[in-house]
């Protein structure tokens, strides 16, 4: 169609006869000869540039933390940053000395700059801005390297940021609430402030593992609450447990959120919860009760039951704190250790009902899990899952221990589960189970994630082929 249309049009254009196209072309030029010129005689008259024209890059010196992101991202390497470290006295007596970067030099060589604006984009602290000034030509190329004083001068012409669009997310500015949360982290926590921010926690604690699959919505928005978001740090993390245990509203809230996952996965959330409970210090008592093939029980949502006897992380916190104080540790150290303990306790809870298959790249995982008698996999997988949220959750140092703890429990859980579902056998027969086990082991050993995955895959492959690996 298009082609024929074009052809038709061409033919029509040719109709008047040979050579008339040439005349037409000349007519066009003649017409344009008498139109107004669009030239702007620059130095004499100036164009009305749009207000946010990208002319020159301005530096807001106070905002710069010398993170070097701009200098590293600059394709032309035209940003020069020098700094030195400054040691600040500790905030409290006996505290650690703080270090701070002080900007000595910040220069942009505009003779090199290609005005890509990547530095402005990449600056995480709003220290670089586009200014609409553009007339800074020089007779000497060296003058084109603007030092921070000159770059700061450009700030005068930087417009305030445009208003947010309607419906846009409110940016994560540190709010008073957040500030209080921070202080609360030190020890005494005003429940009123933290509650809003951390109320999400208990729910999240139980539901977090599921978030990626079934119930991302309930957990997510709360997470992004200003207070929490701002306080993503390890310290803030530790606060959730008190409410988690105290509020304990989970039974009601979580049931709906979790059930679909269970149904779909056919995985035993209960077991994992229970395992978590164990880790947190509860006996096997619960384990016995909860050990039921999960496929049957999805709607009961008894997780909270499992959680109930869990030692309150806050209590743990307090206990460790007291212990430490008694031992004569400095307040900071005591607090830190107490926090670690609390985080562990809390993590134990949160490790809850995670069927790892959810995230597994192996597509066949869920079905296999069902065939193999679900319990086998989830147990070891509980550990890896717990690591997913870990990075944002807190002190990395806590991780290996925890990871180490997990597989042991996994091991402990194993015999029982195997009994329940004999089809899974030793788990050795099922490549999927082997995969999970090796993965968990590797993680426990502290292997890096890629290595762990690779070894697990290798083990699975061996199991599939029926060959013996080096380790076995």
């Amino acid at each position, binding site marked *: 169609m298009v082609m024929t249309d074009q052809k038709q049009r061409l033919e029509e254009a040719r109709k008047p006869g040979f050579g008339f196209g*040439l005349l037409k*072309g*000349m007519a*066009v*030029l*003649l017409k*344009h*000869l008498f*139109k*107004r*010129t*669009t*030239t702007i*005689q620059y130095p004499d008259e100036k164009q009305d540039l749009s207000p946010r024209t990208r002319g020159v890059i301005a530096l807001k010196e106070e905002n710069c933390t010398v993170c070097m992101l701009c200098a590293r991202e600059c394709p032309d390497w035209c940003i020069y940053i020098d700094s030195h470290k400054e040691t600040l006295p500790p905030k409290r007596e006996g505290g650690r000395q703080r270090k701070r970067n002080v900007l000595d030099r910040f220069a942009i060589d505009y003779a090199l700059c290609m005005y890509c604006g990547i530095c402005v984009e990449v600056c995480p602290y709003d220290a670089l801005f586009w200014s609409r000034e553009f007339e800074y030509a020089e007779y000497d190329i060296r003058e084109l390297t603007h030092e921070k004083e000159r770059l700061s001068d450009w700030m005068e012409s930087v417009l305030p940021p445009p208003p947010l669009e309607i419906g846009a997310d409110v940016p994560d500015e540190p709010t008073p609430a957040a500030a209080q949360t921070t202080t609360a982290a030190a020890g005494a926590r005003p429940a009123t402030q933290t509650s809003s921010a951390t109320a999400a926690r208990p729910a999240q604690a139980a539901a977090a593992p599921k978030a990626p699959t079934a119930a991302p919505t309930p957990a997510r928005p709360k997470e992004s609450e200003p207070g929490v978001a701002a306080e993503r740090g390890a310290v803030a993390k530790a606060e959730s447990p008190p409410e988690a245990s105290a509020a304990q509203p989970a039974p009601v809230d979580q049931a709906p959120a979790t059930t679909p996952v269970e149904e779909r996965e056919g995985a035993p959330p209960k077991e994992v919860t229970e395992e978590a409970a164990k880790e947190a210090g509860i006996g096997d008592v619960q384990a016995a009760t909860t050990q039921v093939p999960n496929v049957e029980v999805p709607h009961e949502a008894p997780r909270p039951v499992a959680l109930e006897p869990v030692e309150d992380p806050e209590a743990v916190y307090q206990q460790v704190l007291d212990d430490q104080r008694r031992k004569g540790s400095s307040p900071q150290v005591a607090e830190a250790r107490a926090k670690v303990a609390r985080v562990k306790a809390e993590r134990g809870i949160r490790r809850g009902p995670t069927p790892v298959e959810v995230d597994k790249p192996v597509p066949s995982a869920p079905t296999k899990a069902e065939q193999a008698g679900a319990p086998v996999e989830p147990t070891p997988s509980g550990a890896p899952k717990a690591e997913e949220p870990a990075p944002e959750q807190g002190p990395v140092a806590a991780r290996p221990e925890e990871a180490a703890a997990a597989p042991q429990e996994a091991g402990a859980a194993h015999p029982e589960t195997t009994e329940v579902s004999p089809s899974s056998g030793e788990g050795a027969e099922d490549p999927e189970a082997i995969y999970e086990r090796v993965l968990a082991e590797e993680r426990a050993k502290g292997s890096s994630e890629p290595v762990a995955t690779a070894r697990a895959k290798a083990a699975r492959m061996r199991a599939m082929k029926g060959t013996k690996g080096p380790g076995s």
Partner: protein
Amino acid sequence: MPDINLTDWQILLVKLAIILTVVPIGALAGGYVLHKEMAHMQHRLGPMYAGGFHGWAQTLADGIKFIYKEDIIPAAADKRVFTLAPAIVFAPVLMLYLVIPIDRSLIIEDLDVGLFYLIAIGSVGVIGVLMAGWSSANKYALIGGLRAAAQLIAYELPIVLASAAIAMLAGTLSVVGIVEAQDWPFLVWPPGIGLALFVVFLAGAMAEMSLPPFDMPVAESELITGPFTEYSGMRFIFGFFFAEMAHMIAFAAIGATLFLGGYKPIVPWEPLENIPGVVWFFVKTAFMVFLLLWIRFTFPRLREDQLQKFAWKFLIPVSLALILVTGGWVLYA
């Protein structure tokens, strides 16, 4: 008119002086018109600063700049031929002006074979171009020179044939005689024939001057500046830019003379006779310059083979047919 008695030598000197002032001024003015017309056709302003008023002195400033530039002769060049070439390009262009009648009596030399002389002299320039291309020891220059030669051979014929038809209509080869023969300009009378001859002549002239639709010899995207790639400074400006401008104005004047009635009014009407012939001549020449530039800015450059095809397969047969038709007209009308 006061009676001034001058010897032949004195007369010759005056004539030379006139040519040597008129031609450069004309070329500079032509360059200015080129800049301005092109700019405005593209919604630009063109030169605006040199000289103060709309950049009138731009081409003059350019010329002075080129005079001060270094004159470089490549080591591998054939030095004598290389240095001589621009002169051979430029001299015939100057000589074209000898037989152009600005007014009935204002002509430097009213040759009886004026038209023949114009065509003959007009083709000499290409020898200079070929010399420049050959002596530069540069492949682009050589290709450009050869293209120029091939182009001249191809387009000389339509010009000659169209001019022959004009001579048939006028019954003379004298340029003044041709002008006198045009009661109505040849462009409109004989109807159709004159117009067709004009188009053929225009195409041939533009090709001979290597003006843009036919500027393959200097096609800058392929050949840098063709035969003048290795030239710089004065030689470049005289051999290339200046000669091109002077050549264009000369051909505009020739076209005005042959087809637009030269110094005679555009239509044979009594009141118009009062306007001096010089004015008519300059108006017509200016129109021709405008037309040549207009065509030049409109059309994209042809390919070398298209150029040759256009000449041999279209223009030459058409001009031969036109001679036939003109002969018929002269005999029976």
